[in-house]
């Protein structure tokens, strides 16, 4: 079992979700986050004072999945979230020790 965690541009969320829908995927969690990597911030002004807003809004998607499905999911995310500019984001894949379905109490691969 793996967790795929992707930080992507908010404007690419719908496109990524449509791509994931075409694959078998168990579900996802979406969080609104802020941050930056190499992408420079945005210049704003207030009453003539300039400042750089460099904690930029992004979206974090978290998807728990079985190992075999990981490559297709990662490809779908990367292909649909990419714009080619700095700030496109990153995808992390990490191991999951266990999963339990709350409704039934099932565990393991069946619960993912």
């Amino acid at each position, binding site marked *: 079992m793996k967790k795929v965690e992707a930080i992507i541009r908010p404007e690419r969320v719908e496109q990524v979700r449509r791509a994931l829908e075409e694959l078998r995927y168990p579900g996802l969690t979406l969080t609104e986050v802020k941050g930056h990597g190499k992408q420079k911030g945005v210049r*704003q*002004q*207030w*009453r*003539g*004072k*300039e*400042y750089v807003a460099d904690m930029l809004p992004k979206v974090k998607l978290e998807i728990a999945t079985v190992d075999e499905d990981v490559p297709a999911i990662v490809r779908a995310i990367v292909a649909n979230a990419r714009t080619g500019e700095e700030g496109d984001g990153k995808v992390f894949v990490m191991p999951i020790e266990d999963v339990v379905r709350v409704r039934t109490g099932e565990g393991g691969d069946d619960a993912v």
Partner: protein
Amino acid sequence: MTSQVSAGDTAFVLMAAALVMFMTPGLALFYGGMVRTKNVLGTIMQSFFIVALVSVLWALVGYSLAFGPDRGHLIGSLAWAGLRGVGQAPNPDYAATIPHLAFMIFQAMFAVITPALITGAFAERVRFPSFVVFTALWSLLVYAPIAHWVWGTGGWIRNLGVLDFAGGTVVHISSGAAALAAVLVIGARRGYGSAVFASHNLPLTILGAGILWFGWFGFNAGSALAANGLACSAFVVTNLAASAAAMSWALAEWMRHGRPTTLGAASGAVAGLVAITPASGFVAPMPALAIGALAGVACYSAVQAKWRAGYDDALDVVGIHGAGGILGALATGVFASTLINPAGADGLILGNPSLLLAQAVAVGATVAYSFVMSLVLLKAVDLALGLRVHEEQEEMGLDLSQHSEAAYGF
């Protein structure tokens, strides 16, 4: 007696009073949108509570002190305390065709909004109880006397022939000067200078500005105290000044910083409205355009100067109301024309320099009295109650620390 009451005038003045009342919740939103999320309710509460506080004080003593029988050209007596003698019959000294009560309640709304303007200067850092006490004292000891001088029968500034149609001195210069005193006594917000405290909800601010513009028609046109041609003239010049100023501030920003901002356009409109306030019943439309255009640039520059001066006038009360009010009062001395209002006077541009001189005296007196008296009151309240919130409360925000409330559900 009652046959002298004009239905049209009375209806108009009552509606104008309601419009001016609406300006204070509008101001609450204008200011509220400009502060940080954690302080929005604290900011709004100050303006909203003032509507209640000053409405009551005005009826109890404020109106009498401001407009009551004259004592020494400096203050009214308490003969009208509790609105005794203020009834449905007109008081011809002030407005011959509307009930005295209508004049009183119209004036009440001016007394309400003036201290609310000051709150912008000390936003985000003042204790609520101390603010209430200071406001009550200021309303009775600063607003009422100045209103008496400029508008009351026997008032010494009125006797000088000074022209202030709707409150350039009484409302804007007085609050601007008090704001300066407040920022000097209270000091800057924590972190001021190292961080930019950007507005948390500019749509709210723009809504507030729109309400202010709308209500200002009652503020200026209503000051004709009659549904007549003068009221129309005041209405029109008000709209023109606001429009010219909104554009000139936006243009100034565009040229200095590369982009016009919505906050700039809204602030410009307010600056124009401030400046035209004293002149609104005395100047023609084209001079009003000039006054507005000047006000937009002048108040924009005043706000920029604030950064260099280093004091924390959080929401630019000094730059907009102080500077705008002074500009407007002096512009009245330049552009006033008896063709617009025979009860007024001619200004500099028509060959009469003495009006401008009188206006300057009024400006000086209002600035001096409001600044010094506000300083005294602030110091007194600070010693007795402490004006400023504690560090942790300022960090936590006014909403939680002063009112145990969260604005947006978190």
